[in-house]
């Protein structure tokens, strides 16, 4: 147990050091912006990874919760006079309630059926957001009031780098801890075999639902953070393509690996920025890199590479 605690602590410490050291080498606030986007995507992906990697359930509509979080902090202050900070919590609560209500029936489904049901949820939420233009500003999106905390106006790429970095640290810490709790072990039992898990007394339905709700709250908070950071939000963030992007981050980085989600997010967010020098070949190369890494690192970047290093170390 002590060793486990150390390892968890070490991962977190490394992440904290990386977040603290990166600014020393960043030449301009554009880099802070890109890094903040990595932290936000990573936060959403860590949540989704709890559902996909640990509990073994797929969600193709996860951007719906991201969108709910984002639009809560946009609509709350603008239309209902709710302070931005409270709107973030309300968004997270709304996402949790929606995930609970919707999760109860749909998590009884398996495989393709579950994927389609979550896909439907995602499409529905995106549709509501782009149609209810009186509240959401419609397909062109709406502005988001700046976040103020105790009179301090949170704005600028530099500030948001630290805020999102801190959020990521907290999210990582919770996910790492969860991995080693009875709940986390129940999730993994589910992942390996539902029947076996049920036989040893795991309440399958309850734990699936728990994972779904946790994942929804992660996505919602990440969505709120992005909306605050951009000061503007549009329905794309709740759309199907964003759901796919989140799933890609999780699978690319490594199912079940918390660090994998961060690495996956870093790759998927920074790669398009780095590939702009290739102009029209940009999308071709992006696709190629993802395909090649999935062929040669089937279990994802982090698990595959750490497996390789472990084998080298033993040999």
């Amino acid at each position, binding site marked *: 147990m002590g060793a486990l605690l150390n390892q968890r602590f070490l991962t977190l410490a490394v992440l904290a050091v990386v977040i603290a050291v990166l600014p020393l080498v960043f030449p301009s606030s554009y880099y802070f912006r890109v890094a903040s986007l990595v932290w936000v995507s990573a936060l959403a992906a860590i949540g989704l990874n709890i559902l996909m990697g640990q509990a073994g359930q797929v969600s193709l509509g996860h951007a719906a919760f991201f969108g709910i979080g984002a639009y809560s902090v946009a609509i709350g202050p603008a239309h209902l006079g709710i302070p931005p900070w409270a709107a973030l919590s309300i968004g997270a609560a709304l996402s949790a309630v929606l995930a609970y209500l919707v999760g109860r029936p749909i998590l009884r489904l398996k495989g393709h059926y579950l994927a389609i049901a979550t896909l439907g949820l995602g499409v529905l939420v995106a549709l509501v957001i782009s149609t209810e233009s009186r509240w959401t500003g419609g397909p*062109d999106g709406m502005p988001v009031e700046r976040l103020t905390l105790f009179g301090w106006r949170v704005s600028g790429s530099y500030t948001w780098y630290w805020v999102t970095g801190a959020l990521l640290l907290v999210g990582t810490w919770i996910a790492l801890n969860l991995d080693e709790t009875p709940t986390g072990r129940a999730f993994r039992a589910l992942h390996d075999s539902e029947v076996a898990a049920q036989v040893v007394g795991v309440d399958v339905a309850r734990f699936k639902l728990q994972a779904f709700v946790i994942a929804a709250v992660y996505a919602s908070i990440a969505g709120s953070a992005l909306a605050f950071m951009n000061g503007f939000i549009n329905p794309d963030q709740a759309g199907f393509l964003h759901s796919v992007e989140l799933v890609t981050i999780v699978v690319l980085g490594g199912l079940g690996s918390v660090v994998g989600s*961060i690495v996956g997010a870093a790759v998927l967010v920074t790669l398009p920025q780095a590939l702009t020098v290739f102009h029209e070949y940009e999308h071709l190369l992006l696709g190629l890199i993802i395909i090649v890494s999935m062929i040669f690192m089937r279990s994802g970047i982090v698990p595959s590479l750490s497996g390789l290093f472990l084998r080298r170390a033993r040999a």
Partner: protein
Amino acid sequence: MKSQTTLKMMLAAGAFSVAMSHGAHAQDTVKIGSVLSVTGPASFLGEPEDKTLRLYVDKINAAGGVAGKKLELVIYDDGGDANKARTFATRLVEDDEVVAMVGGTTTGTTMAMIPVFEDAEIPFISLAGAIEVIDPVRKFVFKTPHTDKMACEKIFEDLKKRNLTKIGLISGTDGFGASMRAQCVKVAPNYGMEIVADENYSPRDSDMTAQLTKIKNTAGLQAVVNPGFGQGPAIVTRNYAQLGMNTIPFYQSHGVASKSFIDLAGAAAEGVRLPAAALLVGDKLPANDPQKKVVTEYKQAYEAATKQPVSTFGGHAYDGLFILVEAMKRANSTDSGKIRDEIEKTKGFVGTGGIVNMSPTDHLGLDLSAFRMLEIKGGDWNLVASGS
């Protein structure tokens, strides 16, 4: 052991982001930025814009540049994603250090980028349609395309001439359609228009006969207006003909002002009217038209270089680039603030979209005369003679 791997991975990720290119600055060049939706759902707008900017920046440089300096064009493709556009906007401002920006293909991407340029105090000439871009006026934001409000006004003006006042609306639920519908509803009373039917469709719908039948059966209906862009309006037009509604005057918006609309709608497009820029009918303009020279030259240059038919969207980029270049010449400086002041003083600029007269309260500078009322006849655009 696992943690060491973790460390290595993270350092690699960190090093990767640092390795992203960082351009060198030369004294004899001046950087102009652009973020366009060259790929993705708005690519039919972004692609001609991209080609136009590249073509004309090369031409300007071949002719000696601006105020003794060569232009360096930095274009990023946002794929229509507002969040990506925002990141690229930050990159243009912080990393590329551009002096001005001409871009922002859609209203969504433009609205997401505005705060970046306003904060950095760098002039931003947008190529997006909706009126929100310049209303309220923002100090550093300008735009070249006609607004959807002007399109509604032009259509209503024409309807009024024909003594038609009871109209039906069928609009797309996409950004363009929703925004233009709202503007039409808002300005309708100014022209004595009464909206007797108001239907909508999703941009991906493949059949709109249900909505059209409802409009057809509305008592007192005299004309139908379709705010929308992309393939939706082409389907509406086909359904309109299928339902035998051709006897009721039908208006499309400037959003379909490209040859592909006529190709898609086919014979059903006959008799459809729409407001559009002079660029579409350059060869039919009378010789004394002030825009004749500009639009025919742009059309020839664009079609010779790209082997593709010209579209009004590329024209918006042409106008944006030259408003900027003229302002830079007048300012004789590469200072963003001075360039902004000169853009605002643009007077009598003849572009493909119309004659631009900007002021501190008008960052578009076009009036209704910038739009021509066209009618589709024999599979081609024709000017509607004023008074008919």
